[in-house]
């Protein structure tokens, strides 16, 4: 497998990772159990595998492997809503900070990879813009959860975040597709 193919595999895993993380659809079975249709644990697993595939090309990504593992394990709580009340506030805060940083660093590295491996320099910029919006919206959502009683504002924030998520997923899909096309081209030329 060529390096480009590794990049494609890694980028595609990143897409699926974010797909599972950013979109949440659940079956609620009362207060004791929930069945998430797009479980976050799968998202973190894909990101972990993506990091694994991309870290030879971008060593700083390797620093995120432990974070993906920890966040993946903690996201299992998604299946047990009653655990949420038992989790101490400091742990939630710690996980929120780790999540924020992981998204930031992942998207920073993906943007750098996009610039290095594709001729399209705009993709890197777009990924960085998505990264900035994602970090800001997640921080704002965290604040709204903690401090804002205004439902309308929280809804507005969620709607804005959803738009950012969709744009980000499109960019990630575009990134992996471009890498696939580049690999195909190389294969034909080779």
């Amino acid at each position, binding site marked *: 497998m060529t390096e480009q193919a590794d990049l494609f595999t890694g980028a595609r895993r990143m897409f699926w990772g974010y797909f599972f993380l950013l979109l949440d659809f659940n079956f609620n079975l009362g207060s004791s159990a929930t069945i998430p249709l797009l479980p976050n644990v799968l998202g973190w697993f894909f990101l972990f595998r993506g990091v694994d595939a991309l870290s030879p090309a971008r060593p700083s990504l390797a620093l995120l492997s432990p974070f993906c593992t920890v966040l993946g394990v903690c996201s299992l709580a998604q299946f047990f809503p009653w655990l949420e009340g038992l989790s101490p506030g400091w742990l939630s805060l710690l996980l929120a900070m780790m999540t924020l*940083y992981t998204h930031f660093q992942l998207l920073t590295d993906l943007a750098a990879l996009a610039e290095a491996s594709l001729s399209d320099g705009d993709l890197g910029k777009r990924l960085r813009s998505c990264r900035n919006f994602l970090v800001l919206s997640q*921080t704002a959502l965290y604040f709204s959860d903690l401090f804002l*009683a205004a439902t309308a504002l929280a809804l507005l924030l969620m709607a804005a975040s959803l738009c950012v998520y969709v744009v980000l997923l499109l960019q990630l899909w575009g990134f992996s597709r471009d890498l696939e096309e580049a690999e195909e081209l190389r294969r034909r030329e080779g």
Partner: protein
Amino acid sequence: MGNIWMFLQQTAAATLTALFLLLLQRIFLDKLSPRWQYGVWLVLLLRLLIPAGFGGRSTVLDVSLPLEALRTRVELGLSSAYSSPFASSLPAAPVPLPPQGAPESWTDWLFLLYWAGVAVFALWFVFCALRLSLRVRRGVPVEGARRAAIEALAKEYNLPLPRRVVECRFARTPFVLGAFRPALVLPMGWELDGKVLLHELLHVKYRDVWAGWLTTALRCIHWCNPFLWLVFDKTGNDRESLCDQRVLERLQGEDRRDYGRCLLAMADNKRVRTPGATTMANGARAVKARIQAIARFKRFPQGMGLVSGCIVCALSLSLAVGAPASAAGDENTFVEAPSGMIAEPELVAETLSLAAQNRATTVAGALDAYGKGEYHRFYDGIYDELLCWAISLPREDLPAVLEQWEQEQYESSFWTGWPVEDSWRAGPVYRGLTSDGADGYLCQVFWFRDLSLESENDPRWPEEGDPWPTEYLCHTVRIQPDGPYWTVEKLAETTGSADGRINMFLTGWWDSLLYGPVTWSGEANGVSVELSCVPTLTSGEGPLGSETLRWYRDQDWGYDPLTSLGGRNLGELPQSSPIPGAFFTTIYNGMRVRVGNPGGTPYNITLEVVPDWDDPEITASGGSGQDPDRVDPGEHRYQSHAGLVYYDTLPLLKAGETTEFCKHSGGAQGSLGDHIQEFLCPDSFTVTVKVGPEEPFQVPLTPRYTTPDGGTFTLDGEEAAP
């Protein structure tokens, strides 16, 4: 911080925050820049400067409740001058305040010791700084080529150069001294090293001496917390690491390695903790950590400031500023007492500290807790009663209340948990909320129980279909502000027969001729008039225990506390825990009117009653009477439900005859909010009387404080008349 508990609250909150930040720093050690590693201490600074629990806010790492319980438990056995078992120990300021009065307990002495420690450390640090400053003043100014070289370096990197650059014999490494007029101090005869000088000049540029002084001040305040001292050392090291990072960002290639070697050369130097001075050599261990940081040195990606800023903001709000207590909605926040049937010191302390943290924030909240206190004397756990009293009563009354409560627990040697047969089982219902002329209010709080009748031969035995007679217990109370809280003080206690029609769930009470807390009376031209404004109010989820009253004559009626739900499902019964931020939830308007003809000829009387409030923004909106066209509510901003304009033509009154009745004009229910104007009885009435065909005239009225049975009482320091 006025007592040792306040200091403990503040230092414990800071300690936990520092622990969390150290954990976070460890996790992000190789991921976030030294700028972030140092900047994150801003969160600790905020935590140290914002008093713990300030404004009733709670943070993610809140330890105030266990500390409050400990304080209550310890102070219950003492008679301290600086602290009390009943007053919250959350600090109002982040700095120690001078002790008030002479110490009377060991906790007071501990606070004095702490205070003395603060003073000693502050004096010691100031002395050290002055001594160093005097020694530097005797240093030799750097002139000539050496001075020019330093100036050139400052110019090259666009850094400020301190006015004073001196050489001192005692200095082992260069350092910067002085917050207002910084001086660069070099060891005597030291061979100039541009990288070390760059480090010190960067300290001058970023005013790190100020940060050093701030840390020193915090060391003094938390002198007896060794963990925080270690943390302050760590902040100093992080400051140096950040300075190293800034130096490395300005150097290239071999110079960076040279800089590392400079640091290595200082690894043997001892750590010198001098307030108001920064030095590159800060001890072997710190230098080792800094060299490791240099080995990790990298230029962080663009946008790192964004995520760092977001993380610091989130941490500041979660760990230092905290979320307002009202974020979840006070109106729905019940405070639940510890469960238990026996008085135990730990649970008493827990209950009192719980109450201290959940004092009543609304008038309805204070009445709600007060009213439920009486109810809980006979129901549920014994701590519910104590909690209710402690939430609603004035702080100064709590020692006596606690003593009485303990006495009652001691006396109730046989406690079954079932309601006592003759207890006041249903309530509370509030009546006649009136301004007390100052910042507070007067009100009547009612509880009810069935009248105990032996047989049908009793004349009070009701006719078929009539409601079973009930009797009432009434506390006439005064609700007063205590800072942001409200307290309830009992003024008078009355019992009697509950006349009038009370609805099934006790939310409405009509036709009752019982007096309100203030009664206006007067006489003119042979006509006497007496008025009492008596709107009925309830709070929270409504009165408790209505299911225990025997509403309709039923000879087989027998009360079973487990099965008698008064026509409601178990889940529909109101919550019995107090709601310190409750709002009124129902109001039924009412006015007791009494008109008399003290003497003279029989006549028809036309009566017009117009309520008035001192607050010009309140006007009456309700109306009642036989001639509603005459009622003109006029323009108003507030819909006052409590006052009604009354117009009526009374039947013929013979000489010496009086008539009395209760007029009502509807009401409202739901969450009525905290707009007290909605519920307040008038401050005065204008009564216009027309006798037969004669010209109308006004009856001047004089108010007096009344109990439901017409008796009078006085407020502290006032005459009977308000």
